[in-house]
């Protein structure tokens, strides 16, 4: 059994041909057209790889992590949680010189993040 929330059908030009929803409790607060455009935009940019998995993790404060991997990946929630607690919190949040309302330009953060990903047992190039 699975809960079905909503369905988008797009044509090849990105026009939303049909939209339907069931059991959708949360509205996005933007117009349907805009939401469809955002959804299509995401698909468009993601489609350059044929097979992928998109992993999403959001902290209660609203920081969002989106990780794209190949489709062999299992559940990556734990991985993203660790990325948050060991890298983002430690090297971005706790560094008062990092402005969290702006893109992070911090070499230490980038280096640690890179090392975290490459040092992970899951990583293959």
């Amino acid at each position, binding site marked *: 059994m699975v809960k079905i929330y909503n369905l988008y059908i797009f044509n090849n030009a990105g026009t939303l041909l049909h939209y339907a929803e069931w059991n959708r409790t949360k509205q*996005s*607060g*933007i117009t349907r057209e*805009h939401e469809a455009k955002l959804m299509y935009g995401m698909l468009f940019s993601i489609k350059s790889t044929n097979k992928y998995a998109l992993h999403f993790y959001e*902290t*209660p*404060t*609203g*920081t969002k992590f989106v990780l794209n991997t190949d489709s062999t990946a299992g559940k990556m929630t734990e991985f993203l*949680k660790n990325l*948050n*607690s060991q890298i*983002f*919190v430690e090297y971005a*949040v*706790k560094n*008062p010189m990092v402005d*969290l309302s702006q893109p992070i330009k911090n070499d230490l953060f980038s280096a640690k993040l890179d090392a975290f990903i490459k040092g992970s047992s899951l990583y293959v190039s």
Partner: protein
Amino acid sequence: MSRQTSRLDAKKVNSELFTLTYGALVTQLIKDVDNVDDVNKQLERMGYNIGVRLIEDFLARSGSGKCYDFRDTSEKIQLATRMYLGVSPTISNWSPSGDEFSLVMDNNPITDFVELPDSHMGLKYSNMLLGVIRGSCEMVQLEVSCWFVQDQLKGDNTTEIRVKLLRKLEDSVPAGED
């Protein structure tokens, strides 16, 4: 500071150094800003800036998810106080509508060596704590207001912080192109 889990032990800070550092900061602020009300305001603002970042650390360490109600929130604040200040406040005096509670501390560690001189009775020495609560709650879409009901520095038996939920903030929607 005595912290809860052994995982945090590597980062222990001597509690007297912490207490004295806070004291030095308040003292310097009083020298720089001569109006006590402004000192209170500045302390609160500094706390706010700490709170908006500290909550990220709290959530990462405690693994907390979203709160279901304000009672849930009060327990998280209690846990956070234990983690970061090493004291366990009691939660009491809930308002009937459940939007307001008190955090009562028998002992406020940041005031360990402090006695307020008569000339500074208007000083809210621990005002930074209120800012921390306000800042961290704001990051999880809760607008709260906090004030001191009792303060051991003013001769009360306990330190009592009142926390009131004003409203829930809406998740921000990304700006559209149009």
